[in-house]
């Protein structure tokens, strides 16, 4: 065990699994530049047509825009609520603390199909029409555990005596939060916001129940899977969005790493 060099089979295994993990994604990419509409070998030729057609397809762009709206709104709300609950969790003692933390963390384990139908039930008995708003509300609930975890771990990382010092110097508590605490947890806030954004952006299980007539991108993609001739366009868009999401995730990681 003192020998740290990789035994050959172990590194071979590692990179075989890596290859296995990348293979379907590579296939997806390959077929987004394939001339043929069916996904079979041999490839007939390569083209960027699908990407071009993508920008002429109104419904596709509308769905992408819907997702953008939902993700922006829900990530903003989830981050705001995450900040609130984190400060309560780390800086206050109160009787209903376990209840609040439990409520905030529980969406992590409740199956999405259960949460989805429960919200569907709520909105329909309240006669609220399904819309981007109802999807956004659901996404806020499921993104909250992530924003809470990211921001709370940052808050745990610095000493509350900094706040005491600010208050000794005459700042009231809201001022202390605004001028001292928020700047200190800013990297975590950015990371939490980006995480919530990506969680919402490709969330499908809840959106399928709650989207109504305005589909988000994953819901639209799902509805188009039946039409074989539209598939390459969808895959082209999927590849673009994949690149977008990955960029966001990398930026989020950067901000989270900065914390320590």
């Amino acid at each position, binding site marked *: *065990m003192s020998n*740290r060099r990789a035994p050959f089979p172990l590194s071979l*295994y*590692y990179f075989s*699994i890596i290859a296995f993990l990348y293979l*379907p*994604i590579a*296939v*997806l990419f390959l077929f987004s530049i394939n001339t043929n509409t*069916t*996904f*079979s*070998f041999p490839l007939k030729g390569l083209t960027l047509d699908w990407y071009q057609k993508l920008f002429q397809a109104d419904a596709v762009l509308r769905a992408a825009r819907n997702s953008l709206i939902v993700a922006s709104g829900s990530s903003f709300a989830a981050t705001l*609520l995450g900040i609130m*609950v984190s400060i*309560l969790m*780390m*800086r*206050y*003692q109160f009787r209903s603390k376990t209840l*609040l933390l439990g*409520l*905030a963390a*529980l*969406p992590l*384990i409740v*199956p999405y*199909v*259960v*949460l989805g*139908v429960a919200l*569907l*039930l709520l909105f*329909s*008995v309240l006669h609220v029409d399904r819309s981007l708003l109802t999807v956004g*509300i659901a996404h806020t*609930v499921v993104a*909250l555990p*992530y924003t809470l*975890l*990211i921001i709370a*771990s940052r808050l*745990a990382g610095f000493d*509350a*005596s900094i706040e005491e010092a600010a208050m000794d110097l*005459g700042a009231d508590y*809201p*001022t202390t939060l605004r001028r001292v605490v928020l700047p200190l947890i800013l990297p975590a806030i950015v990371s939490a916001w980006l*995480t919530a954004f*990506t*969680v919402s952006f*490709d969330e*499908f299980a809840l959106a399928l129940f709650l989207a109504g007539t305005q589909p988000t991108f*994953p819901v639209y993609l799902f509805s188009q*899977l039946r039409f074989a001739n539209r598939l390459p366009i969808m895959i082209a868009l999927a590849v673009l969005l*994949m690149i977008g*999401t*990955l960029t966001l995730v990398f930026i989020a*990681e950067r901000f*989270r790493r900065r914390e320590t």
Partner: protein
Amino acid sequence: MGRGKGRSVTTPAPTLPSPKSEAFGGGVLKGRRGRGLDRRSTFLILYLPPLIWLGLFFLIPILLMAAFSFRADTYGALFENWNLGLNQYATVVATGSYWRLLAVSSLMALVISISAVALSYPLSYFLAFHAGKRAGLYLVLLLVPFWTSYLLRVMAWKIMLGTDGVINSLLMYTGVIKEPLEALLYNRSAVILTLIYVWIPFAALPILAALQRIEWTLFEAAADLGARPYHQFMRITLPLSLPGVLAAFFMVFIPTIGEYVTPLLVGGSRGFMYGNIIQDFFTKAANWPLGSALSMIMLAATLILVFIATRLIKLEDLLQ
């Protein structure tokens, strides 16, 4: 579905506040100076919005679903036709196919989580002990597929496994088979394969975290006392990484048992899971009280699993 996407390389762990901050939180400075808003009014501003939001959009919907599951009839209106009864549960109990599907779904989740954990253990082991300076880079390499959209990865498998899909056309092109294999897509095996694929990077994370916590001095001591690598692994590495293995198992098992999207895409009617009948009762069949009863059973099963998980795994072990 965004399920399980902490999307963080190492799970950020909230540590307990220091005793000092406890004292601070305990209200040492409460109401100080009386200038502006004190900590107590700030408390309400911080406390009410999350409580109302979670109450309205998380707690009440689930309580409402519980209430619906005790409706004897199949009406949908909130204020009319409320005949309370256990009919829906009686229907569920009497219908063997629901139980069979729940059992099959649990079995599938078991196969998927055991496979994902077994396949990712060597990955974590490699990263923790043998990857050297490049461990960070290799880890990112492992995580990029995980960060990629869940729906797209499932869709990619649909394209891979289809009758005129990638695998079939490749096999026919190379002359291995004459007729396309029908059995690849739209069955339980396709669901299992796809979900194992989806979960591998995720399962590697808690195992890696557990392996990284093992003290190197333990191995040195074991080697000094004459333990061979095999015994070092069986007596040190494996037992000490067990909390991570269990965490990985439950982190895969719990969301998988409630799956309905992957069966929808690659499972077809032969690959249905328990989540799909819930979906059907709320969409096509429109029998909400029965769907609610089925959902409550799913919720109860999940909560029992989480309870067992927290008994088996000490949370502190994972958070350090």
